[in-house]
């Protein structure tokens, strides 16, 4: 039995096991009521502290769905809660001129951004699309984190697409958001083939079995924790990860050690 379970159950958080949420969002959203969608520095901070979330890396819904708002939504939020938050610079390939500008300005916001976020299933252009390339080249050169929304079977961000960018940009640290959900065999193959590719657990642990399969094949060193917060509850996901039967060491890797390594030099 994982010894961290008793501690999380007792206190809700464990000092020696901080949690990094590597896949989050911010802001209200059209298709769902999010009780904690609206950003408020005090409330957000207290929600994160309840579950021992040391740092949350997000990309605002407003950035992803409004080119008019763009990354302003991320910058303003991180700067109000800099000890807890960092953001991914959100990219919309339907507006390549904005991508170019955001890459150009990236250095100005090193206090805000740790990398880029692609939501290709929604923006309907594949992750290898040329409109993203200024950002990919920059991430490759600077060793930035790139969080992709990935889903099994998707022509935009399924395993075949991840393979293309992982091969082309070995310097980028690629997080497969949702781990190419459902296509676990391909997810595993990608992790084995590319040391710069990581599985991220949001939606993976909604059902039992997926994490167990990935762990059996690859161990815990290329897995990071994420929740799509404020969609999903941190305690729910922490409980789910522990219930997969992982050891203490694996839990430490997934909850914080792998993230700490990825974020080295970026925060």
């Amino acid at each position, binding site marked *: 039995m994982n010894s961290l379970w008793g501690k999380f159950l007792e206190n809700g958080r464990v000092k020696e096991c901080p949690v990094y949420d590597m896949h989050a969002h911010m802001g209200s959203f059209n298709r769902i009521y999010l009780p904690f969608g609206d950003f408020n520095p005090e409330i957000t901070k207290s929600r994160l502290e309840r579950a021992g979330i040391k740092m949350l890396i997000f990309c605002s819904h407003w950035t992803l769905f409004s080119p008019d708002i763009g990354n302003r939504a991320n910058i303003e939020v991180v700067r109000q809660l800099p000890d807890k938050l960092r953001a991914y610079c959100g990219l919309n390939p339907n507006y390549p001129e904005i991508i170019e500008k955001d890459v150009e300005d990236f250095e100005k916001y090193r206090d805000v951004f740790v990398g880029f976020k692609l939501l290709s299933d929604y923006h309907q252009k594949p992750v290898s699309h040329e409109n993203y390339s200024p950002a990919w080249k920059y991430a490759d050169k600077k060793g930035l984190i790139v969080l992709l929304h990935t889903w099994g079977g998707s022509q935009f961000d399924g395993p075949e697409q991840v393979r293309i960018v992982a091969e082309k940009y070995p310097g980028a640290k690629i997080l497969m958001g949702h781990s190419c959900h459902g296509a676990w065999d391909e997810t595993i193959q990608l992790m084995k083939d590319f040391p710069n590719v990581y599985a991220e657990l949001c939606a993976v642990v909604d059902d039992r*079995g997926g994490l167990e399969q990935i762990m059996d094949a690859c161990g815990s060193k290329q897995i990071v924790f994420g929740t799509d917060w404020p969609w999903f509850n941190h*305690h*729910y996901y*922490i409980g789910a990860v522990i219930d997969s039967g992982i050891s203490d060491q694996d839990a430490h890797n997934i909850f914080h050690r792998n993230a700490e390594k990825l974020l080295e030099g970026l925060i």
Partner: protein
Amino acid sequence: MEKIEFFDANVFIGRPHNGMFGAVNNSEGLFEEMDKQGISRAIVWHIFQYEGSPVEGNRILAEEISKSDRFYGCWTILPPQTQEIITEDFFKQMKENKIVCLNVFPDWHRFVMDAVTFGDFFQQISERNIPLFLTMGRSCISWDSLYRLMRDFPRLTCVLCDIGIWGVDRYTWPLLEKFENFYLESSQLSLEEGGVEATVKRFGSERIIFGTGFPVRYPKASILQLVHADISQQDKINIASKNLERILKKEKL
């Protein structure tokens, strides 16, 4: 402070025909899991009720749950007209077999769940306070047909399970507001950030029933969420077991 006892309202036994990670095929397997998770009692159904034959599935379930006082059963119903399940002594059979609630899968089992099909029967279970468990998973029903059901049978005790991955407050809150015997099972409400807290704040803790969704979902997920929810200890106790106990006590079989 009173301890939280967990009474799980959403568990099935039996192995699905397409396979499922960690499914348990009998009560012994379920015992083991419940002990591991610290869950004291459960309302159980058998996957064969859905995937194979409701008639034979109900029978297997009754046999399995007879092995322990910690289990209560949930039988699957079909239209009364075909008399496959609902016969004259149906309620007596429920009582004899420790069946405390019913579930129904209209779209999958191919019938229309409305007043035409179930008029008299749903009147009877409304009067007898027998809870009807519905699921938003497994292609069971649409939101439209759920709304129609509650409009037609406003006194019906209804527990909505597996509410979905995406938060559904925009769908469920109107039902909680209008129908006092409408309840939410928690295994996916717990998944929604702030979902339990917001629902309790708006409607009180009496309207949520604890469930794990085992074997599909991880029991420790909804347990950890509830134990650390930003609600009172009494609210947690209500959700974990008291609400379901209260519903079952009101039942007249």
